[in-house]
């Protein structure tokens, strides 16, 4: 599903973020990406939705070769990938419903399908009764669920989450993790960068630890391993 071969990434300012990374992630896997700040986690994640391009190496997502993909095809790649951020990235002036519908309008879905898909996904994240609320009328956990709903409304095969619980209190974090597990149970591949030792050690999944730009550890049902 996701295959990285000998990935190197050096930024224009001379900083080397990745230094020869090889990864193979299968469809339906749940993978934690861990490692200290500045180790290359964010670069690793951004490579997958083509926010950054590798300096060297080959990336395959499904049947798309990201090293050969044309610039104007990138939007179509992203329609297969949902992305969730630490800071939610919701539009403050749009309601919950509109925020999610926005993702479908952009890809020119029909109004009928939009209505159905948005209501379905709101049901799944448990926010059906808050569809008309504005983001700032919701708690942090609810806002993150809206952003997850936006990421999955299009039924992508892969969901990438960059520290999705980073801004949330522990209790809320568990709720969010439950949502991710449900999504994963339906066959969606989930790749999640995180700093949370509790989460990694409690909900056991594959762990990829990145340090100094290389994969330092890759274990199924792994531990967080760092003492912080």
């Amino acid at each position, binding site marked *: 599903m996701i295959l990285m071969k000998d990935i190197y990434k050096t930024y224009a300012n001379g900083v080397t973020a990745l230094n020869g990374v090889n990864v193979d992630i299968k469809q339906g896997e749940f993978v934690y990406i861990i490692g200290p700040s500045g180790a290359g986690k964010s670069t690793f994640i951004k490579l997958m*939705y083509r926010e950054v391009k590798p300096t060297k190496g080959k990336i395959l997502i499904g049947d798309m070769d990201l090293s050969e993909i044309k*610039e104007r095809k990138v*939007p179509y790649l*992203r329609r297969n990938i949902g992305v969730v951020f630490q800071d939610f990235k919701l539009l403050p002036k749009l309601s919950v419903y509109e925020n999610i519908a926005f993702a479908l309008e*952009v*890809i020119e879905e029909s109004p009928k399908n939009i209505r159905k898909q948005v209501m379905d996904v709101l049901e799944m994240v448990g926010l059906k009764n808050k569809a008309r609320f504005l983001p700032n009328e919701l708690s942090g956990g609810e806002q993150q669920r809206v952003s997850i709903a936006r990421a999955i409304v*299009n039924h992508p095969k892969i969901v990438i989450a960059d520290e999705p619980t980073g801004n949330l209190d522990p209790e809320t974090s568990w709720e969010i993790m439950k949502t991710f597990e449900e999504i994963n149970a339906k066959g969606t591949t989930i790749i999640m960068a995180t700093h949370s030792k509790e989460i990694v050690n409690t909900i056991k999944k594959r762990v990829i630890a990145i340090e100094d730009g290389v994969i330092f550890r890759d274990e199924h049902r792994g531990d967080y391993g760092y003492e912080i």
Partner: protein
Amino acid sequence: MKFRTFSRHLREGSKNIVRNGWMTIASVGAVTTTLILVAVFLALVLNLNEMAKNIENDVQINTMIDITATEDEIIDLGNEIEQIDGVESVAFSSNDDELQKLIESMGEEGESWKLFEQDNPLNHVYIVRAAVPEDTERIASEVAALNSVESVVFGQDVVEQLFEFNTYARTIGLGLIIALVFTAIFLISNTIKITIMARSTEIGIQKLVGATNGFIRWPFFIEGLLLGVLGSIIPISVILGGYYYLDTNFSETISFSFVELLPFNPFAWQLSLMVLATGAIIGVWGSVMSVRKFLKV
């Protein structure tokens, strides 16, 4: 593109026009000023051009025939002139005809010239016309070289002066307009840049969920177009009103001999269309400039 999507772009684009308030007014004002000047300048130059063309077409070479020439020599001369390359027509006009024309053209004062009817001091004349106005000068010099020709007279000077004036007017006007067009484009692209910055989060999310660059660009494109078109409303009213006023009130007064305004219909409409197109181009150019930088396409 689906109609639904297009109407969305239209809605988004117009929303920004309202949202940007004073910047919108500044850009529309710049476009308006530019277009009014473009219109005045175009009306002037196009009229001058037409005028020059009319006069040029009227240029004829008056060939004064030597007074001592015999009737045979005059006929020979006529044939020789006809042989010259580029001559369209040769017409003979006797000295009596010439005097008559002179008397008529002088009006009241012409009466006194009637005294000369008994002893006509004028030459017989061949009136020569060139098929192409540009050949006039060459033909005139060839005619002058022939036997039995006393002198040739033609109105090239007037035409040349008019063309020269025309060139100056065009150069200065063009320089002015290019400067103004760039100012207007700059203002529009700045206005749109403000819109883009205000919407950068939104655009970021759009890109993330797989919006194509075209999809993101459309509302800005429409915003630019609207700014340009809004800016052309006042100039077009000025053209239509002003030119109608000129045409109805002054075309009589200023139409002495050769000066004639292009008729209101269709000229004022064509001019309006040109102004509208210029406005649209300025607007679209301004928007495309600022969006391209932002999208890094």
